[in-house]
């Protein structure tokens, strides 16, 4: 379906199937969010959740639990999932490699290292610095991988990911080395954070993350067009009138910014950026713009349900969402390796 108006100046393509899929994803999300608000060490019935949200709960504790602990957690899960989904989708199209993921090529690890450094080396630092440091470090990693991998054009996509695996190992070693400074309790907490957990988030993280996401959303909307041309390959994109080099830099920066914002809030939740775009493609065929939206929605679904599952599966022990996504995402990664690649 096509929507045209304003004397031909406005003409938008609207694939019905993808929009329906997006609606269904949103509905599934609503269910998970409600379940998430009700689940925990202080279980609540749906009526109680509703009452607490409305501020009319008879039970003071229920209001506190829902509004101060679970609501920001649900919100952070939503936004972080969307950012990770978009980050992976953008990176996969720019590198033309369906196996790419910010957590696989070291971008997330770089962001984590920056955050761990802030925590360990500058304990008094403002938490608002974390997204900035994470972004700078993630960007540095992306630049390093690009410059190492892009020397030769042939096979550059595979070199990108293999180089990323090496860089990720290096950074992970640095992070682990930093952790040897920490005391036992700090180490436990840090390992939880490094596994990607929504356990400790509050309204501070929720607000910072939402602001970052609002700032990045228009950039992602802009990105759909150059991505549509770039997915056909750099030379075709040049022929179609894309300034490929600046566009690539801008798009990788966007992908890194999305991943870094999410990592700064919830730690490196792995494989979401890898899996979400693939699931999105399975769910509905769509142009690049809607594909980004679908990948965001799928990412949200993955992170939110991973968080919910991690909380419910071994209660009272909370399993970080990142452990759940890695345990599910790594086999999917293996399946993707097995898929036939066309030349």
């Amino acid at each position: 379906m096509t929507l045209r108006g304003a004397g031909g100046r406005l003409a938008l393509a609207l694939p019905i199937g993808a929009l329906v899929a997006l609606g269904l994803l949103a509905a599934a999300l609503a269910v998970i969010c409600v379940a998430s608000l009700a689940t925990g060490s202080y279980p609540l019935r749906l009526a109680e959740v509703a009452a607490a949200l409305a501020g009319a709960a008879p039970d003071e504790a229920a209001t506190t639990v829902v509004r101060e602990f679970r609501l920001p957690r649900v919100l952070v899960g939503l936004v972080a999932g969307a950012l990770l989904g978009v980050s992976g989708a953008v990176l996969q199209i720019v590198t033309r490699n369906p196996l790419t993921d910010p957590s696989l090529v070291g971008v997330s690890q770089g962001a984590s290292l920056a955050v761990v450094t802030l925590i360990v080396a500058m304990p008094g630092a403002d938490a608002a610095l974390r997204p900035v440091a994470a972004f700078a470090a993630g960007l540095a990693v992306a630049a390093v991988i690009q410059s190492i991998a892009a020397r030769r054009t042939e096979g550059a996509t595979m070199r990108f990911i293999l180089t990323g695996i090496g860089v990720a190992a290096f950074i992970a070693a640095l992070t682990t080395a930093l952790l040897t400074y920490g005391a036992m309790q700090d180490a436990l907490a840090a390992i939880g954070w490094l596994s990607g957990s929504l356990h400790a988030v509050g309204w501070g993280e929720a607000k910072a993350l939402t602001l970052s996401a609002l700032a990045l959303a228009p950039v992602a909307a802009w990105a759909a067009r150059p991505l549509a041309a770039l997915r056909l390959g750099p030379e075709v994109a040049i022929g179609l009138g894309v300034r490929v080099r600046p566009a690539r830099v801008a798009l990788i920066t966007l992908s890194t910014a999305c991943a870094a914002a999410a990592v700064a809030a919830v730690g490196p939740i792995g494989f979401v950026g890898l899996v979400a775009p693939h699931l999105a493609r399975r769910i509905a065929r769509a142009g690049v713009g809607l594909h980004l939206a679908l990948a965001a929605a799928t990412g949200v679904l993955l992170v939110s349900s991973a968080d919910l599952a991690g909380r419910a599966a071994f209660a009272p022990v909370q399993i970080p969402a990142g452990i759940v996504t890695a345990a599910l995402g790594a086999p999917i990664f293996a399946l993707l390796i097995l898929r036939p690649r066309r030349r």
Partner: protein
Amino acid sequence: MGDFIEARRPASAMPAGVAGNRTPRLRVRGLSAGYGGRTVLHDVDFDAAPGRVTVLVGPNGCGKSTLLKAMARVLRPSAGEVLLDGASLHDLPTRRVARALALLPQGPTPPEGLTARELVAQGRFPHQTLFRQWSAEDARAVDEAMRAADVAKFADRPIAALSGGERQRCWIAMVLAQETELLLLDEPTTFLDLKGQIDVMRLLRRIARTEGRTLVAVLHELNLAAAFADEIVMMRDGRVRAAGAPEDVMTPPVLHDVFGLDAQMLRDPETGRPICVPRTGPETPA
């Protein structure tokens, strides 16, 4: 067979009748270019003959693809310039260039799951904006391009499911949908079987004839060039060694000079086009 399909000419194209008299829109002057400090092209001059099929040939590493890439602004020249309507191509806004000049690179790979129509629609990119994504004009151009390239019958099939020749015709339809007067094609027949090669070359010739567009293609296969080109440009060691109509440049001395090939020339009895037959020497008994 489909050679006389009526297609609307792109707005920028002039009537086919005066094609031969037009001034070239794309000129190359004193061009040198290469990869990472290694110069492959040396001081090349070249004009794209308007409304005609020009084919660049030469031995491997002669610089024919490099010349095409420099004309398509994939490569930045180290000296000299490429002129589009008299202005330096590499300084023009890239989107404006994309409305005048289309490029089909060698062996392009489509992203997974894309259908033929979606691929062709991508050719409208330089005519679209964030808020003007799919105008009636876009729909018309895509339909016409698919009709011209004879790919309408598998419009909704995934590109990956098509044969090599069909896939390549879809890519050609994509650059057609771009509605540029100039089309640059880098080895459009590689990876195709013989039938696929002939189909693609007939399509390209038809595009030049019926739509008055200007085509410049790099080809590997000498006889394919001789059979379909209006102009042949022979290159060697990064320089143009001969240029002209096939019957003028396809001569034993030129072939010997450019390819180091000892060949005799025959003529296609139907078209009168030259055919190059390399001498294989006498068979010696074992």
